[in-house]
C-alpha cells in the first residue's frame, strides 16, 4: 500500500508539513487565515538537532501495537490505514505508551490524534506531502 516516507537528506526543517497537517483538519479554505494566531497541533512532527531534521508521522504498521493495545477498540486498521474513532477514545494514552515511533499524541479535546493519511479530511492525499517544498516527504508504494 501507499505510505508516507521521509528522506531526511531533503528535509529543510521548514515545518511546513506541520502547518499543512494542521490546516487539513480545519474546514477553512485559506491556510493563513485558518492558522492565524493559533497554536497548531499537527499529527506529523519534525524532529531536529544539529542540522539534521525529519518528519515523523504514523507508519501504519502491519502489526500495530497501538491498535492491539487500544483498550476501547477506538483504534482500528482497515485497508492498511489506522484510524481513530474520536468518539470512543477516552484518552487513556495506552497507544502513546505503545507506539515505538512516538507518532501518537494527545489532542486538545482529550482524545488522541494521529496521522490518518488525510482520508477523513482531504480525500486520501496527505497534505504534508503536497505541501513539502523539497520532496522530503513522499506518498508512494515501496517494496514490502
Amino acid at each position, binding site marked *: 500500500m501507499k505510505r508516507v516516507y521521509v528522506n531526511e537528506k531533503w528535509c529543510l526543517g521548514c515545518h511546513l508539513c506541520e502547518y499543512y497537517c494542521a490546516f487539513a483538519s480545519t474546514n477553512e479554505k485559506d491556510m493563513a487565515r485558518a492558522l492565524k494566531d493559533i497554536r497548531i497541533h499537527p499529527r506529523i512532527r519534525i524532529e531536529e538537532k544539529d542540522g539534521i531534521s525529519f518528519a515523523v508521522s504514523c507508519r501504519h504498521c502491519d502489526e500495530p501495537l497501538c491498535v492491539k493495545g487500544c483498550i476501547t477498540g477506538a483504534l482500528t486498521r482497515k485497508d492498511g490505514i489506522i484510524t481513530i474513532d474520536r468518539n470512543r477514545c477516552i484518552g487513556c494514552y495506552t497507544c*502513546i505508551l505503545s507506539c515505538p515511533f512516538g507518532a501518537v499524541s494527545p489532542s486538545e479535546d482529550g482524545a488522541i490524534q494521529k496521522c490518518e493519511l488525510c482520508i477523513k479530511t482531504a480525500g486520501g492525499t496527505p497534505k504534508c506531502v503536497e505541501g513539502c517544498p523539497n520532496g522530503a516527504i513522499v506518498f508512494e508504494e*515501496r517494496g514490502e
Partner: protein
Amino acid sequence: MKYVIIGNSAAAVGAVEAIRKNDREGRIVIISNESYHTYSRPLISYLLLGKTDENKMKYRSDSFYSENGCELMLNKTAVRIDPDKKTVLLDDGQNVSYDRLLIATGSSPFVPPVKGLEKVKNKFTFTTLDDAKRLESVLEENTKVLIVGAGLIGLKCAEGISRKKVETVCIDLSTRVLSSILDEEGSEIIKRHLENNNISFFLNHQIIELSENTAILDDNTEIPFDVLVMAVGVRPNISLLKDIGGKTNRGIVIDERCRTSIPDIYAAGDCCECIDVSSGEMRVMALLPNAYMQGECAGMNMSGADYVFDKAIPMNAIGLFGKHIITAGTYAGDVYYEADQENYKKLFYSNNKLNGYILIGNIEKAGIYTSLIRERTPLDTLDFDLICKVPGLMAFSKEERACKLGGIA
C-alpha cells in the same frame, strides 16, 4: 476444527481475530459468565465518570460475532474441563466439545477476610460492568465512600465516582498509592494530586473490624461510611486448569506460544503468567494490551500457524483527575532522573539495556522508551544521553532512521 474460548474479553477477541486470519471455516464457540457483548473492563470507571456509555464501551462492533462466525454462549460458567474427552462441562450440565481450547477467564477481585464484613450491606468490588452499575445505583451527593485499596482499581474507582460529589476515603496497607507501578517519589506526587481532588487517605493502615457503617483501623481510628468498595487486588482465575493437573503458579503458566502444560489447551490474558522480558522472570501481567496480544498468539497457534509472543512487559497508562502517568518495565539499575513542578521522569537501566521507566505529566512519545525495553535494544547503539532527555527517533543511527521512516530494510 472446533475452537472453544472460555471468556469474552480482550484475550478472547484477540484469539478470534487471529483464528479468522487462518481459518474461515472452523467453528468458534465463546463461553461467557456475563450477559454482555464484549466490553472493555477498564472503561467501567469512565462510565461512572460520564466519559463513555454502555454502547461505546463495547470493545468490538455489534456485528463482531456474526462477522467472525462465533457462537456465543452467555451467562454460562465453565465448571470443569475433561482433557481426555476434550469437553468443557458448563454449570447448566451441558458438555461442549473442543478440538482446541482457550482459557481466557481473567481474574477475580480478592476480598480479604475482615472481621464484621458480613455486617456491611453496601459493599462492592469494582472490576465488571455489573459492579459499576450496582455501585452507581447507591451513590448520591455526599455519600461517604470508603475504598479499600489505593492501587489502579481503587483509584480509578475514586475518580469515577467523583462525578457524584461523594466523599471518598481511601485506605491501604501500603505506605503509598499505586505502589505496584510507581516509586516512592512518584507515589507522593500522585497522592498530593488526589488529595487536591478531595480524596483522603489512610495509608499504612488496615481495617481490623467492620460494622454496618463504620470501619475501625489498626490504630483505633473510626471511619464512618455509607458504601464500602473492596479494591485490594485481583487473583487470576486458574482453577479450570489447576483442577485437571495443569501447571499453575499464581497464574496459569504459559509458554511463548501461549500453550499450557496440557495438549490443545491454551491460555491468555489476566489468568496467566509468562516471562516478563524486562526482568526475565515469570509474572502475572494483568493488563489489556498483553491480554489481546496473548489471545492473538494463542489464536494463531490454535489455527495452525507458528507464532511467538515473547515480548510481554508490565506497562500502564493511567490518567487520574487530568494527570497522566505512563510506566513500563522493571525499576532496577541506574537511574536517569528529571523533575519539575508538573513533570516527573525516571528511567532505569543496567547492562546496556533500558529496564523500566516512570513518566508523570509529560508522557509524549513514551512508546519510544517502551520499545527500547520490549526489544531489549542495546543502549550503545543509540545516543542514550539524548534519548533520556528527549524520546525521539533522532537518538537512533541514520541507518536505523532510514529503516524506520523510509521503509528501507
